[in-house]
């Protein structure tokens, strides 16, 4: 093959024109992934991929194969895959092989997509740089001395480097959108309840959603249509229409786009990021959108809410890793000592820090002051978004205050690291859909534009994003070849 396809739409067209078979496509991507210099993959599964590709080729001979049939993808290693090791990038799950697949994997299997392997991440998805993996950091394809973002850093790097056509990530406070921004790809978090979480290793259950990382807006919408929909195994899934691609060509003329001023005032937003976002806003105006100044006054309280709610939920979810039923066991002098030693040895520092923080926030005497208070401020933040969406169709913000930063530069300062997600985590707190897409470069590195829509309004989200993509060339920017190699 001269050049590998970058998008689902391009691959689907080549497969149907018989320019390439699914098996040839899988082999070409497996080869590219095997040569990855960025530690994006924890495991490649060539036999599994070739078997799925052979089945896809058979299916493509029949007329009505779904658009994802034969399309190679990468799976974040926090999403359970039957018979294929799933570690959450943690020592405590080293060698763990799930007995069943997550619903999202089942749905992609049924759509004919070809899973190439499992991608690296921050341990249990706790991080914004992919430096917290027990299996080593991921490097950014744009500059290998820098982080790709996190926690879905391996998924973002694999898609950015052309080693997979799309990837799945999970987003609890920005873990799809922020690595999407820092690695120069599209990253999308659906409305809470859109995508079944069954079989996905739980982190913070009221915030977690699975979503796609892709090289185009339309691709993200295609993957969403395959993932969305009610699942009897997840009682938090919502039954709503899933045809989110319908308005991709509708444009933004006459739409009202809100610019929340709090996302432009905090110190620490790099001037190059602000400049790229301002240019994008001007572009939307040129395309006929009405730009509306709005206020979300409690934005700066989001971080505090998030760092109570999220570690609290995590401390409950991660209680299951006790060395009894699966995973690592380090024997101690009695059963409680075995728990302590197993968890002390099996979890990395960031996970321990958050479990201690969450346990503290839930402990007797602190529960009301921290956990209940944070849940109340969560209500305040949600109501502010509700009020703003009475006035506008979507919001435009930066995804991250900075471009990709050097590996190691924030590793010893957790609070600085947490501030990476200051613009993405309010979206999880309110359960809204959000998308990051490339909108230019600053210092030679990608800047992400975040679009936020009201709950279940993914069709509007993709409409706005598609209009920007169609009018600009930013999504054609690629990591420099000599750097990526």
């Amino acid at each position, binding site marked *: 093959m001269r050049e590998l396809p970058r998008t689902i739409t391009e691959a689907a067209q080549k497969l149907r024109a018989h320019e390439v078979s699914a098996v040839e496509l899988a082999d070409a991507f497996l080869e590219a992934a095997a040569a990855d210099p960025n530690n994006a993959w924890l495991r490649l599964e060539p036999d599994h991929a070739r078997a799925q590709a052979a089945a896809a080729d058979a299916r493509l001979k029949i007329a009505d194969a779904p658009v994802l049939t034969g399309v190679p993808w990468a799976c974040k290693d926090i999403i359970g895959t039957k018979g294929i090791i799933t570690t959450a990038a943690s020592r405590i799950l080293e060698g763990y092989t799930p007995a069943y697949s997550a619903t999202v994997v089942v749905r992609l299997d049924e759509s004919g997509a070809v899973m190439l392997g499992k991608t690296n991440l921050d341990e249990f998805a706790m991080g914004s740089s992919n430096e917290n993996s027990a299996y080593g950091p991921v490097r950014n394809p744009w500059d290998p001395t820098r982080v790709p973002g996190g926690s879905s850093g391996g998924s973002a790097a694999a898609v950015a480097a052309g080693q997979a056509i799309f990837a799945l990530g999970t987003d609890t406070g920005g873990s799809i959108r922020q690595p999407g921004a820092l690695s120069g790809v599209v990253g999308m978090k659906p409305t809470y309840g859109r995508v079944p979480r069954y079989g996905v290793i739980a982190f913070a259950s009221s915030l977690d959603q699975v979503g796609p990382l892709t090289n185009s807006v339309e691709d993200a919408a295609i993957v969403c249509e395959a993932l969305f929909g009610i699942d009897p195994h997840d009682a938090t899934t919502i039954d709503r229409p899933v045809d989110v691609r319908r308005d991709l060509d509708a444009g933004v003329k006459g739409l009202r786009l809100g610019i929340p001023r709090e996302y432009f005032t905090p110190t620490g937003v790099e001037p190059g990021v602000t400049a790229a976002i301002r240019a994008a806003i001007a572009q939307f105006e040129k395309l006929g959108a009405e730009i509306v100044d709005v206020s979300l006054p409690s934005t700066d309280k989001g971080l505090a809410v998030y*760092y109570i709610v999220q570690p609290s939920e995590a401390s409950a979810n991660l209680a299951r890793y*006790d060395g*009894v039923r699966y995973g690592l066991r380090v024997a101690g002098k009695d059963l409680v000592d075995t728990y302590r030693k197993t968890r002390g040895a099996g979890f990395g520092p960031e996970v321990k820090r958050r479990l*201690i923080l969450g346990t503290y926030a839930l402990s007797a005497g602190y529960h009301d002051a921290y956990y209940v208070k944070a849940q*109340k401020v969560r209500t305040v933040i949600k109501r502010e978004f509700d009020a703003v969406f009475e006035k506008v169709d979507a919001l435009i913000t930066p995804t991250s205050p900075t471009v990709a930063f050097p590996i190691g530069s924030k590793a010893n300062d957790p609070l600085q690291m947490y501030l990476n997600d200051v613009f993405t985590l309010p979206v999880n707190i309110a359960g809204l859909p959000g998308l990051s897409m490339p909108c230019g470069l600053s210092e030679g590195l990608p800047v992400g534009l975040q679009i936020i829509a009201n709950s279940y309004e993914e069709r509007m989200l993709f409409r706005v994003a598609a209009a920007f993509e169609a009018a600009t060339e930013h999504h054609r920017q690629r990591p420099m070849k000599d750097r990526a190699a």
Partner: protein
Amino acid sequence: MTTIDRARVQHVAGLARIALTDDELDRFTGQLQVILAAIEQLNDVDTSAVPASASVLPLLNVMREDEPRPSLPVEVVLAQAPDREGDLFRVQASLEERPDA
């Protein structure tokens, strides 16, 4: 709210069943103090008339019939166990017989 000291970090790590080294205890205490200081700003928000949100979903309870359904085979589940005895997970005794009882 109050700040957290080394003894409390050690106590909470015990509640979370996590063994920490002395070095981790020192490092985490300082880092958690910084994080909790940032969280203090929750007190700036007046929430006297605001309900708590555990979830953003417009759902209360989702009910279904309580009917037996197939579950995973015992052998598949136990295959991942660090230690087993027959069809059981094997762990250390949590209750010992006291000789004076």
